[in-house]
């Protein structure tokens, strides 16, 4: 059997050391009526057969080429430098346990400390944590920080916050006991205003004005941001947001049908003790050597139990490592260029599509970055024609917004080369 290490002789020796003849002698505490006769699964397979089976499943889905994928909605194709996988596939990283034993985990600890720094830099906030699960739960955790900080029981979410993030926020609110209202005008009952930039449709929000509205109401501003966009767009710290959260999938992670990805959260210094999850800090050992520790742990479940700021324990450490390698590889110039290329391609595509008869930008007066909503004569027909050419077209906004029936949200990244834009246009002719 694969992955099992004992021979029958090993088992016999180990049992003999215990004065037993059978492993049954160890299971006497289990009431007999609970014993299972047989686990109702097929018998195991060889690795060859296992991989044949799994490859067969993989082959039953359609993989669109990178350059012909124009669908985003929170998950994006980006070029992933080979360095990212080369680092994250090192067994010393991916098979390591949570770094509770500091001296035996300094590689992971330093990598997380390094990750916290660029996240703080990108968002222009003072501190960032070691990672959360995804963008949706990061929004919920950010909102809960605000609920605790303000003692208020309502969270206002701007329209066109990612609908799945909104749904997760509501689910956390139902459990934790805060209401979620969709709108842009927080009042004296509001703990936070949550705004996504760019929003789910790709459009830019007026973050400085919305931040002022939140602060005027005594609420915190929670900005949910696209990390690549921050190569070009104003970071949350620049417009005075209190908490910055977001989805880090674009920083070196494959789409993987939706996960595992990376939730990030950063905040102003004075909120640091409200942060959920792990924080890595610098420390010294007896010999004065620098090292890294899990710090401010009095916020966490394994110390505080029911009084913890969150129940999060396992987070997305390996994904944070990928993001850190990705950002280190790109550096500040590379990040800005990736954002600029995506911007240029999306604006070129938007202009080309808007010239087609029956096509028009759904919000022509609104600015966008690299994702934009466009109204088409028949969304299903357009997607069908693209599908025939092996192109994954824009996302149907009507699935979530009845008033946006026949609106498709297209996105472009550095992977959608000019020839791919030509192919897309040609497919619609």
């Amino acid at each position, binding site marked *: 059997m*694969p*992955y099992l290490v*004992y021979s029958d002789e090993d*088992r016999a020796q180990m*049992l003999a050391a215990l004065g037993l003849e059978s*492993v049954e002698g160890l*299971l006497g*505490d289990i*009431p007999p009526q609970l014993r*299972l006769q047989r*686990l109702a*699964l097929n*018998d195991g397979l060889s*690795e060859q057969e*296992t*991989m044949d089976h*799994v490859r*067969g*499943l*993989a082959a039953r*889905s359609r993989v*669109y080429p990178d350059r012909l994928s124009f669908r985003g909605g*929170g998950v994006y194709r980006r070029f992933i430098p080979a360095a990212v996988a080369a680092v994250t*596939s*090192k067994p*010393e*990283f*991916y098979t*390591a*346990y949570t770094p509770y034993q500091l*001296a035996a985990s*300094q590689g992971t600890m330093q990598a997380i*400390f390094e990750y916290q720094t660029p996240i703080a830099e*990108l968002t222009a906030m003072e501190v960032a944590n070691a990672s959360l699960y995804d963008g949706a739960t990061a929004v919920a955790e950010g909102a809960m920080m605000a609920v605790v900080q303000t003692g208020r029981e309502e969270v206002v979410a701007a329209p066109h916050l990612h609908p799945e993030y909104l749904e*997760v926020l509501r*689910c956390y609110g139902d459990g934790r006991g805060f209401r979620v209202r969709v709108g842009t005008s927080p009042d004296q009952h509001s703990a936070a205003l949550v705004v996504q930039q760019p929003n789910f449709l790709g459009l830019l929000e007026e973050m400085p004005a919305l931040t002022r509205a939140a602060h005027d109401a005594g609420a915190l501003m929670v900005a949910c941001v696209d990390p690549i966009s*921050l190569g070009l767009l*104003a970071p949350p710290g620049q417009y005075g947001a209190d908490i910055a959260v977001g989805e880090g999938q674009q920083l070196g992670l494959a*789409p993987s*049908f939706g996960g*595992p990805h990376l939730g990030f959260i950063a905040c102003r210094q004075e909120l640091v003790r409200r942060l959920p999850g792990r924080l*890595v*800090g*610098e420390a010294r050992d*007896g010999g004065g*050597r620098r090292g890294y520790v899990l710090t*401010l742990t009095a916020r966490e479940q*394994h110390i*505080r139990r029911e009084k913890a700021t969150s129940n*999060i*324990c*396992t*987070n997305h450490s390996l*994904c944070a490592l990928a993001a850190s390698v990705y950002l280190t590889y790109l*550096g*500040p*110039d590379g990040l800005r260029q990736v954002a600029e290329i995506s911007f*240029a*391609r999306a604006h070129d595509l938007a202009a080309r599509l808007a010239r087609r008869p029956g096509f028009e930008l759904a919000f022509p007066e609104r600015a966008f970055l690299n994702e934009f909503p466009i109204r088409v004569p028949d969304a299903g027909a357009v997607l069908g024609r693209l599908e025939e050419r092996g192109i994954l077209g824009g996302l149907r906004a009507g699935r979530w917004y009845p008033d946006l029936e026949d609106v498709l949200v297209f996105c472009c990244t550095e992977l959608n080369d000019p020839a791919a*834009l030509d192919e897309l246009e040609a497919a619609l002719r």
Partner: protein
Amino acid sequence: MTEALSFEKSRPGLPGPRLPAAGVQALPPASVLPAEALRQTPPGLPRLSEPEIMRHYSRLASMNYSISENFYPLGSCTMKYNPVANEAAAALPGFAYLHPYQEEDSAQGALELMWNLERALAAVVGVERVCLQPAAGAHGEWTALRMIQAFHHAAGEARTEVLVPDSAHGTNPASAALCGFRVVEVRSGADGRISLADLESKLSPSTAALMLTNPNTLGLFEREILEVAELVHATGAKLYYDGANLNALMGVCRPGDMGFDAVHLNLHKTFTTPHGGGGPGAGPVGVKEELVPFLPRPTVEKQDGRFRLDFDRPQSIGRVRSFYGNFGMLVRAYTYIVAMGGDGLTQASLDAVLAANYLRGRMEGLLDLPHRGPCMHEFVASARSLAGAGVKALDVAKGLLQRGFYAPTVYFPLIVPEAVMVEPTETEPKATLDAFTGAVAEIVRLAQDDPQRLHEEPDNLPVGRLDEVAAARRPVLRWSPAQESPKELVEQP
């Protein structure tokens, strides 16, 4: 050995990597976007070349213990071998490059995998349905409690308390609190098992659920589990199973048959997905029929040989994360289950129980074993017998690090003084268990002969014991240019 931070190695003049030209006619962002929307100062990311990056991370990697190199006797954490075939499977483009919003017809393989995995997990734990959405064990716990909360709510009952044994993992009370429940602790009896009398006195019409793991965190099977279930159900409460210790039970018995109504699993424990130095994991939740209507949406359904996502679930608690969970981890766990099969999983659990008892037997005479055996997949010893020499569980842990083993879980569960909690798993050869025993024996000897030496260990790792108190007093949570860097690091070649 220490390594400078990437930021300290950064060189201001270094250009970024080469990127493709945009190749299209478009105005520069500054002429299209409002000024207030633009970034004023670039982010302070490091500038390093690829050769420097690769060396940096290789050096960091060499500072880690990992299951690929070291034995992790970590109680309740189930650190077993991570099959490399799992990694190959998850990297297949038909999984790794699927967009979560591509049409169902074009993602049939992924949906089928989820459907198959759900059935397999349901068979292992004995439940009706399994939700694959939660991203980690704690997230699964919370999801299960949200469903139980919604169930009581739908029945028109306001149940506000969750009972948690004093031996429980810290995420149990934290997850309950995050659902707005009041946490009530249930005491363990002298034999380390839940006290039926105390449970009975704490159960009330306000009780929403009892959270329990079986085997418990002492590695002991809760012999009276059927009585526990009966008591809990008689008050109308639900019984929740923390799957942290499922590795003892595959093919042996099932939480569902014991009377548990909701079960969370850690795929990164029992089902061999790697821990990644602290995630990503996956924490599916299985439920009995009564809780099925409250499952997070969407569920995966099979109809006429075709798989689809079902969003039309009016009583669903909604979503607990975006998309369909940590799909990449689901692929890994599924690959493991297919390779092992029902026969292999059963043998894995039997071997895990055998390994734990063998190692427990070998600890006799070295450390205290406060509870009678046999144990299941793990056991808790106590280092209190070394207290006379001024040696604590922490010193035992550090002494094991010195000797090339990761440390056992110490000071948990909280009900055992100087607890040393050991879980060998089924993937550690007997020779490794014997070598571990030798290391513990050496530490116990050193505790008598030279306790001071023991306090100074480890001294063969990149750093010694770090001053966590000082670190928390003035937390430095990020690098900043103003910070003073150790000279020897910056100047190293």
